[in-house]
């Protein structure tokens, strides 16, 4: 069931993942698919989209990047936050070995996905990238779920020096019939989408766009005629790259 109006939950636990990223565990549950997101409301502040890291209990991993996320980071255990959703189409879980590629807080929906895939017996390798070692988040969750975790830092302070995309390419070399699932900065997704196309690897990519309604009406989250809030946020490589006429709905090819 979708919560149509912002609904109050209390924060049960807060965990620092990095100097700028925190994970909030709430005192309630929703039913969601990995990749789906919720709109989080802080009264008098704003309402912003965040991926679910888990649905029971509801878990959110929030990077501090501006006014709203700063306000979120000021919340303490016992405080309330409001959310509506879950919204959007999540990842479609394929019965093949999985390569997950996360850039920064893009690890959030993938941690949820990893758990579900593992529960279904799928082998999961994760390429986790960030600027510095201290920015790598949720690695423990992936490990706890039974994934093999491969780190990359741009400054080389931990794991591979460079990008998660490099690691992903190597993981795909080792697993030519894997499926790729990714979430992170736009440039990373574009690069991975090209990679998938070149190699004929099925890829699914969770994208971000400015969201207002989250309901598929305001058009604010447009990506080449696709609605990130409703058709996505998870898209195929072709959709990420803006291929014409690749609408997810039957009306796509008139």
């Amino acid at each position: 069931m979708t919560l149509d109006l912002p609904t109050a939950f209390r924060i049960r636990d807060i965990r620092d993942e990095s100097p700028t990223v925190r994970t909030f565990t709430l005192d309630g549950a929703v039913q969601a698919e990995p990749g789906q997101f919720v709109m989080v409301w802080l009264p008098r502040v704003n309402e912003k989209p965040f991926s679910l890291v888990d649905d029971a209990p509801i878990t959110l991993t929030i990077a501090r990047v501006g006014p709203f996320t700063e306000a979120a980071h000021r919340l303490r255990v016992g405080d309330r936050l409001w959310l509506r959703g879950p919204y959007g189409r999540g990842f479609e879980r394929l019965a093949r070995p999985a390569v997950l590629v996360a850039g920064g807080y893009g690890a959030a929906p993938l941690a949820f996905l990893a758990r579900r895939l593992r529960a279904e017996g799928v082998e999961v390798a994760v390429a986790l990238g960030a600027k510095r070692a201290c920015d790598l988040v949720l690695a423990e969750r992936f490990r706890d779920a039974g994934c093999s975790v491969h780190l990359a830092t741009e400054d080389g302070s931990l794991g591979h020096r460079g990008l998660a995309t490099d690691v992903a390419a190597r993981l795909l070399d080792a697993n030519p019939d894997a499926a790729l699932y990714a979430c992170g900065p736009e440039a990373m997704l574009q690069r991975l989408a090209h990679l998938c196309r070149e190699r004929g690897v099925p890829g699914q990519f969770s994208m971000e766009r400015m969201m207002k309604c989250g309901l598929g009406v305001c058009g604010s989250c447009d990506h080449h005629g696709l609605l990130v809030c409703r058709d996505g946020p998870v898209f195929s490589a072709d959709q990420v790259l803006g291929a014409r006429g690749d609408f997810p709905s039957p009306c796509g090819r008139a």
Partner: protein
Amino acid sequence: MTAPDLSVPLCGVRLGNPLVLASGILGTSAELLERVARCGAGAVTSKSCGPTPRAGHPNPTVLAWGHGLINAVGLSNPGADEEVRILRDAKARLAPLGVPLIASIFAETVQGFGDVARKVAEAAPDFIEVNISCPNVEAEFGRPFAADARDAAAVTAAVRRAVSLPIIVKLSPNVPDIAAIARAVEGEGADAIAAINTLGPGMVIDTDSGKPILANRTGGVSGPAIRPIAVRCVYDVSRAVRVPVIGIGGVTCGRDAVEMIMAGATAVGIGSAVYYRGPEVFAAIREELRGFMETHGYSDISQMRGLAHDA
């Protein structure tokens, strides 16, 4: 019996079917406008554009409150210059599909309406829709122009002087006598009337925090909840004027569209239904409408138009 003809004429322009994407829903980009056209709309309206870029209100801006939507997007738009580029692109994409483009505009002053109209006319849309009825920017601009017959007439006259394209004036239901406003804008050269914009405004309060949920506190109400009001407005307006009416408000299925047409509408706007049934709603309602006409032996939309008038 021959298959029913769903096409309708609107100010000399032929729509393949009477269903029009309402302004502010998905009309933010050329690609989205194209998509809606491919989804089966008879015409598409771009999101209302003003003279200069506006960010709109902070979130929450749109909510589904149970019987409809409520929104205070706050006329976010990229400004007239950028809009011209979007509309040109849209027009190029729509032309091969044969789906007309309605460019919606707003402004803070009578003069501003003329200026924006002249600007967007450069993109050669098929119509200009004049949004004088947005209830979500009142605090900033004072009462909407649609609230007063003289203001509404003045805006219409200014746009009429600025462009030779067909002009649709979009009215507000939040007035004591919508027919009087309709007559006033018809008198100044409106070629068609769109009715209605959102109702209210309304307010939804979160009982846990005690706060109005919309950042703007209040917002315009749309969707199923407003249908009886919209139908009455369309009935009143279409009896008061000779120009065609685009009936908008709470239409989510074929029967609703028929009801609007029987109330006097020539075309039928679809907005919030996109939330309830997705962008595919256009083809779906179109086929429901076709089915209704087949069952009831109507061969042409015009046979149903205004049937309720001689009740």
